[in-house]
């Protein structure tokens, strides 16, 4: 089993990160601020190739291709000498988008999936559209490589806006960093690490048992299985996003949050405003809006159709299986019902009911996301209402004994449940962060526990690596 570029390893945390940071800030002090960029590019490409060198040509070709297309598109107000007289800027935009989509589709549906391809392809499609619309001038190769290969986000997002990140690199060209500024970054990183390595990976063990034998699940087991995965994927992906944001913060770059307590949502529409926010923003602005614009006269029903199409695409963006398509369809349907209710029925549900309905619906949709096959998914789904076998816990008998193996899992599940009920998410915690002894002790505790778990056989790879 090969290693993969990831944040949750000892080498990354104690070797790679400190080297990158030290090199970055030392080079910033030199005469040419571009040296720090080249350093970051080299480190990012090294990180990306770690354990799997064959991925690198794919990232590099995508990077160079999009850089080149953008040069052909050229700035909006001048005539690019590269463009042949009869080929317009729009031609190169369409060409760029089509080839990016084909590139992504080929790997996603017909071949293995190179790390991060779904994310850096989308980011560059946004970039091409922004170039075409004149939102920014085409990048130099250095600038383009800097943002696209940016190691905190290259593997799993958040999906960045190229212009925004480059502006920040320019604005912070001469800025160093103090311990006070580094502290919230370290704190956020430790929270993210804990969420992933301790909480998510422990819920994973429960979920894997359940999804490994879907036909034997009693009602309680069905709920435990599905809820475990629902919680696993949240802590996994949001934990990763926390770490990505934290590392970028340490480099002086602010990237937008990707999660905002999604399981507090009281509607499916709200859920997508709180879950994988960078993807939702891309989908809404660059997919939903153009689809809606293409309809001659917009009315409610056409907007609903656009919503459905958009969410189906979100589903299959995750992969080619029927499960992902159904996941997308369910969420599309949920949003349509949501809009319909708000617009036509207009009865406002009590908060608790709205929350319960939404959360249950989201939980059910994730069953199709996770299950190994459609029959498995329906088996888990029906176990939720399995009145023939309600209380049996036979499927989980191996985990229900107190042993050195199960104790860490039980501990982390408890931690997970405490984390959920505490009400504040990681962003809210960091906003109020103070460089005090109490905070540092807490952060150290999280890191130490995480490292112990990391060293054990609990820890696994990130879920969204598969996308």
């Amino acid at each position, binding site marked *: 089993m090969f290693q993969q570029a990831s944040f949750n390893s000892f080498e990354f945390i104690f070797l790679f990160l400190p080297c990158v940071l030290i090199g970055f800030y030392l080079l910033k002090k030199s005469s040419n601020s571009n040296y720090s960029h080249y350093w970051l590019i080299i480190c990012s490409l090294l990180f990306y190739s770690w354990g799997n060198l064959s991925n690198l040509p794919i990232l590099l070709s995508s990077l160079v291709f999009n850089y080149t297309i953008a040069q052909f598109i050229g700035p909006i107000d001048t005539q690019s000498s590269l463009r042949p007289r009869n080929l317009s800027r729009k031609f190169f935009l369409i060409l760029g988008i089509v080839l990016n989509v084909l590139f992504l589709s080929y790997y996603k549906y017909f071949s293995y999936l190179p790390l991060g391809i779904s994310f850096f392809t989308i980011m560059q499609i946004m970039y091409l559209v922004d170039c075409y619309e004149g939102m920014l001038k085409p990048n130099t190769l250095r600038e383009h490589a800097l943002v696209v290969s940016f190691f905190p986000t290259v593997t799993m997002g958040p999906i960045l806006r190229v212009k925004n990140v480059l502006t920040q690199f320019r604005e912070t060209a001469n800025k160093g960093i103090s311990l006070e500024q580094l502290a919230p970054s370290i704190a956020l990183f430790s929270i993210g690490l804990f969420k992933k390595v301790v909480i998510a990976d422990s819920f994973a063990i429960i979920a894997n048992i359940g999804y490994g034998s879907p036909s034997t699940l009693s009602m309680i087991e069905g709920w435990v299985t599905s809820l475990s995965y629902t919680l696993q994927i949240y802590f996994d992906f949001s934990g990763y996003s926390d770490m990505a944001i934290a590392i970028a913060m340490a480099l002086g770059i602010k990237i937008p949050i990707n999660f905002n307590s999604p399981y507090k949502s009281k509607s499916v*529409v709200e859920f997508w405003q709180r879950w994988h926010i960078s993807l939702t*923003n891309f989908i809404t*602005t*660059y997919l939903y809006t153009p689809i809606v614009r293409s309809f001659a006269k*917009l009315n409610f029903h056409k*907007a609903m159709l656009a919503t459905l199409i958009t969410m189906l695409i979100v589903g299959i963006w995750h992969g080619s299986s029927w499960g992902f398509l159904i996941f997308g369809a369910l969420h599309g349907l949920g949003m349509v019902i949501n809009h319909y209710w708000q617009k036509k029925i207009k009865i406002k549900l009590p908060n608790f009911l709205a929350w319960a309905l939404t959360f249950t619906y989201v939980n059910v949709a994730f069953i199709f996301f996770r299950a190994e096959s459609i029959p498995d998914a329906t088996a888990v789904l029906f176990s939720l209402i399995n009145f023939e076998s309600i209380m049996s816990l036979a499927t989980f008998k191996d985990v229900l004994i107190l042993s050195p193996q199960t104790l860490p899992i039980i501990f982390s599940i408890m931690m997970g449940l405490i984390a959920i009920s505490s009400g504040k998410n990681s962003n809210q915690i960091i906003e109020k962060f103070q460089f005090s002894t109490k905070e540092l002790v807490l952060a150290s505790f999280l890191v130490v526990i995480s490292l112990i778990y990391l060293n054990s056989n609990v820890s696994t790879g990130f879920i969204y690596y598969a996308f």
Partner: protein
Amino acid sequence: MSNILDELQPIFQDIFEDDELSITAESNADTVEDWDSLAHITLIFAIEQEFEIKFALGELEAMKNVGDMVELMQIKLSK
């Protein structure tokens, strides 16, 4: 600035079906009820038609509140 804001009021009131609605520069999806992506896109279309301007996709995402919207509109209308 306030001129455009005044002209926007009836459009907002129509889209959100609320004659009492009064928007300010700070109004956005967080402060106005039922302002979701559907309302947003309907709003954009109505504004584009009424004022005969076109928003770039990248500009749509950058608008954080009505104030941003009005600023952008001023630039487009002055061209």
